[in-house]
Structures are given as structure tokens and as C-alpha cells.
């Protein structure tokens, strides 16, 4: 464990350069380049906003901003996008880098860190764009927005912890990635992002509160739309769960390491 951290420290410059490379090459051959990282979730938000406000006439309580629903949607999406990007990319990180792992010796734990770093940067750009839109539609910043960095950190931690475990498992059982793609879609709809939790029947809403992503996304929404503080208690529990998951993930990773290249 200590050795792992030392190795990461020794490779810190490599991790930073790789994050930079990663951001550059992901969109290297498209004209709009990294703008796509922002455009995609924003477009998704716009589609939901049109479908749900115009077609379904969704309403939110306790606001008088006519863009309230759009703000609600984008706030939740900002959190969800970070989580799902980290999980999806960690999921295939070892499989995608098979040829590298077979040829070079380096601390493999760098790979999920690079992915987390690059997803984090992407998400910060998206968050900046989202905030720009909020201000444009009249949702002015409050002191509560200062909780955002904490929310981002918790989301990243939770995503990384889950992604590391799944990524290691996926090396040995490739179905994990396939299953997770479906699970993540389901998970998205089980998280109140495009709808408000109060439209659900009581017992259903109760179950949904066990979903960690509910606490995270609704904290984003509370902070950004209603100017309320996040749900500290639930978030604290999520941090605890994430730390346990991360420790389990590291242990799994260490135990699986010798076998990893054999099956890649």
C-alpha cells in the first residue's frame, strides 16, 4: 500500500502528462476538439428539457424561475456525467491498455488515476459551461455554490472506487463491461435527474433514497437551483462507503495484479 503510493508519487509527472495527452487525443481528429466533451452532455440536457417541459409539461415545486426545470436537469447531469464517465472508463481501462501492460513495466495503478484526472478536467469544463448557462437564464450564484468542489470530489471518489473494482473484474470476466452499460442506463433512470422525486409514489421514493447517486445528484440540484446546503449526513455515509469500496478495490487490484497480464 505504502509502496503503491510511493510509486504514484514517483510517477506524478507522468500522470499529469498523460492526462494532458488523453484530453488532446480523445478529440484529436474532430474539428471541434474538446468542445465535444461539453457539447454532448449539454445537448443531452437540451433534449430532455424540450421533451419533458414541452411534451410532458414537467413542473418543479418552490421556484418561480421559468427555466427551473432546465437548471434542475443540468445540475443533476453535471454530477451524473462525472460519475458515469469515471465508471465507464475505469471499467475498460486495463483491457484498453492491454498492449501497454504487456510491454512496459510501470505502476499500473497510474491508469485509473489518469482516467479520473482526465474525467475530472472534462467535468470542470462542463460545470463551467453549465454555470455560464445558469447565469444567463437568471439563476445567480449563491454562497451555497461553494459546496460544489466538495460535491465534485465525493462524486469522483465514489466513481473511482466503484470503477476500480469493476475494471479489475472486467479483465477476467468481460461480461462485466456489457452488463454495466445496461446497469448504468437503468441507474440513470433510477436517479431523479430528469424527474423530481416527489412525483413518485411514497414507498418507491423510499427505496430510491438508498441510491447513493440520488444523494449526490440531488445535492447538486439543491445547491445550484434552490441555494440550499447539500445533504451532509447522506454524503458523509457515501464518503464512508466509497472509502471502504476503494480499500476493497485496492486490495482486489493488488491480489489480481499477477494474473492480470496472463488473461489480457
Amino acid at each position, binding site marked *: 500500500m505504502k509502496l503503491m503510493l510511493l510509486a504514484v508519487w514517483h510517477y506524478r509527472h507522468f500522470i499529469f502528462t498523460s492526462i494532458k495527452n488523453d484530453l488532446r*487525443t480523445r478529440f484529436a481528429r474532430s474539428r471541434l476538439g474538446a468542445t465535444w466533451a461539453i457539447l454532448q452532455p449539454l445537448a443531452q440536457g437540451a433534449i430532455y428539457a424540450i421533451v419533458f417541459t414541452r411534451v410532458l409539461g414537467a413542473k418543479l415545486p418552490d421556484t418561480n424561475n421559468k427555466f427551473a426545470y432546465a437548471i434542475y436537469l443540468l445540475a443533476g447531469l453535471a454530477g451524473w456525467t462525472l460519475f458515469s464517465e469515471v465508471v465507464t472508463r475505469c471499467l475498460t481501462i486495463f483491457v484498453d491498455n492491454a498492449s501497454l501492460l504487456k*510491454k512496459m513495466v510501470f505502476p499500473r495503478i497510474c491508469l485509473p488515476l489518469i482516467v479520473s484526472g482526465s474525467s475530472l478536467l472534462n467535468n470542470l469544463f462542463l460545470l463551467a459551461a453549465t454555470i455560464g448557462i445558469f447565469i444567463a437564464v437568471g439563476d445567480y450564484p449563491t454562497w451555497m455554490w461553494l459546496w460544489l468542489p466538495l460535491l465534485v470530489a465525493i462524486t469522483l471518489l465514489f466513481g473511482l472506487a466503484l470503477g476500480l473494482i469493476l475494471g479489475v473484474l472486467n479483465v477476467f470476466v468481460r461480461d462485466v463491461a456489457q452488463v454495466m452499460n445496461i446497469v448504468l442506463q437503468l441507474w440513470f433512470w433510477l436517479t431523479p435527474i430528469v424527474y423530481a422525486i416527489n412525483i413518485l409514489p411514497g414507498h418507491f421514493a423510499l427505496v430510491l433514497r438508498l441510491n447513493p447517486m440520488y444523494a449526490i445528484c440531488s445535492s447538486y440540484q439543491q445547491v445550484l437551483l434552490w441555494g440550499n446546503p447539500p445533504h451532509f449526513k447522506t454524503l458523509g455515509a457515501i464518503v464512508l462507503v466509497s472509502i471502504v469500496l476503494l480499500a476493497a478495490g485496492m486490495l482486489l487490484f493488488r491480489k489480481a495484479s499477477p494474473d492480470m497480464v496472463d488473461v489480457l
Partner: protein
Amino acid sequence: MSTAVLKIEGLGKAFREYGMEWRRMLGWFGRRFEPTSETWVLRGISFQVFAGESVGIVGQNGAGKSTLLKLVTGTLRPTEGTIGVAGRIAAILELGMGFNPDLTGRENARYTAGLMGMSPEQIETIIPAVEEFAEIGEYFDQPLRTYSSGMQVRVAFSVVTAVRPEILIIDEALSVGDAYFAHKSMARIREFRKQGTTLLFVSHDPGAIRSLCDRAILLERGKVLMDGGPSEVMDYYNALVAEKENATVEVRHLASGKAQTSSGTRDAVVETIGLFNASGEPVEFVNVGEPVELRVQARLHRAIPRLVFGYMIKDRLGQPVFGTNTHHTGQALDGLEAGQLVEYRMAFPMNIGPGSYSVSTALSSTETHLIDNYEWRDLALMFNVANQNRNLFVGTAWVPPIIEVRRQG
């Protein structure tokens, strides 16, 4: 040559299959299950390599050469046994180094150097040297996807060898490059060796093994079959390749301490072989340029539809100097009967440089010994060439020039 930089003891690598992957996973936490299948790619490998030694690893496909190098490098972990390594290892395993096709050569070089654990300052100092050594001009700043495989090898080799490692591991990679770069990289490897780098080298090119290595290890089905001088091991390996069906490889230790390898079905064998001078006397020492005759008598033990005789003169390192056969000279014999004796006389001037040489002979039905190998015999004859009355020269070829020297102005 005193300290072992690489110490391998009882090394084994098995690839295990489990019917259900969760059984493998439970194994990490102490609950072991029997694997459904287990393939030992290497087993019971033990050897030591000393500082400055250069070892060639040879063997047929699937013998475990690449697995061995991966284990030493550390990308694969051994199933049993230990590998002790003293010093920094640099390795080129197969092609490409996991380069990113969208990054330029320069960025990939930085990336790989980072992967090798270099600090940013160190990377900045080596990059100009990498660019200079790779010699790919402005391609260095083009995305890697525009590169030929030879150019990728150039960049890979230049980065990996930018700083002299204690142990350099090369797996075939250099066979992809062009001749010019191959020479250039060989020169760098030789330079490293002089400074004490140990080389571990997998190649199918006998020439490269003979000229670069002072020791060779022959792997066969995951075991060390032979560990010795490169010529000896390569001769044995050649015979082994020719001998896939009935293993009749035979090694005789000559009085000189060298090992003579022969193989084949023995349907035709070389009975006598000798080197004679112009007056018909057998000779062992020959003057540079002296006319000689190589006489070989071959006996047939069975009726053979077609017989080709070939011979090869090799230098003391086993590098071919000259070789040909009666297929190429249009003198193959057809329809031979059992018991017949065939004599071959090859007259030629000894236009080779001073040194010790050997003759290998081959009897087969075609121009290669891989189809019907009746007999292949290495070190069938040894002789020495001495420079008795020529101007001093070096090299294995005697190419006497007419030199004109004029003072002008």
C-alpha cells in the same frame, strides 16, 4: 564477469484456465480451486547471467522465448521460482511499445520515457538525443499513425536505449527495421556491452546471435535444452529444425573441445572429407589465395531419387563465409542406388582472410535441408588460413586491390 546481474532459479510459468472465473478470484483470497486446465509454458528454468554478458535466446515458435523475456522484464509474474535482477532493465518486447497513434513521435517518446520512470528534467535532456538517433526527420513531429513499422522501431529503440541500462532485453524487434538502422542499433548495443551492459536477445537470425552474443540458450518446450557457445547452440538448433520427425541429432565432442553436430536420416552420408593442395597433398594450413581442392566422398545407404550436395565454409564464430550446393550449380544427381559412392571435388583459390575455419556439409534431395535431410554435418572439417606472403590485411575476404596513389599539385 564476476557478479551475476540476473539469477533465475527454478522458474516456471503456467497459464491457468478455470471453468468459472470466480474460482480464480477466490484463489487470490486464499481459497484455492483446481484449475480446469494448466499450460506450463516454462518450467524448471535456472541460469545466471553475468555483468557484460550477451546471451541469445533461441528456440522454435512456442518454445517460451518471449514468455521468458516478459518474466525477466516483469510484465508477467512467475508462477514458481525466482528471478533476481540487479540493476535497471530496459526492454523492447515485440513491436510498438504501446505507442499512441494520435500522438507525435516526440510525444510518444516523452510518454514512453515517463512510463520508464524518468523525471521531466531527464526526459527533456534525452529527447534531442532520441530525435537525433532515430533519424526520421520531420516525421518526429507527425502523428504516429503516419509511420511505417520501421520508423516505429527506430523511435522505440532510440527511447529505450537513450540511457544505458544494466540489462537490455530485445525481443525480435530489430528484425523489423531496415538494414541501416539495424547496423546503427547493433553498434549502440556493442557500445553498451563495452560499458558493461548485459544483453538478453531473442532472434531467429543466426547471424545476429553469432555476431552479438557470447552465449546462447536453446529453449525447447519450455525447458533449457542447451546452454553454451553461440555457434554450438545454433548448429544444434539448425539440426533440430531439420529434424522434426525422427530425432537423430548427434553431438560428438571433437579433440579441439568443439561440439560437432550432425543430423539426418543417414540414407546418404559423407564418408571422407579432406582439403588438398595443388600437388594433391592433404593440408590443414593454407596460404591466403592458394589454390586448393575440397574432396568429399558420399555413400548411399538406400536408393535415392535425387541427391544434392552442399557445403559451407564458416569462420570461427560460425558466420557463413561461402556456401553453395550442386542444385545451384546444376549438378544434382538423379536415380541413385543403395551402396553407390559419389565423389565431389571442389577446386577453388583460398581467397579468404587469415583465421580458423570450418566446413559444414549437407546431403539432401533439394536445395534446402528442410525437406529430405539425409545428412547435415557441422564442423565436418577444420582448417586454418595464414597470411604468408601477402600485404597485411584484415577481414574474412581476400579481395586484392590494385591501388593507385598519385600526388597532385
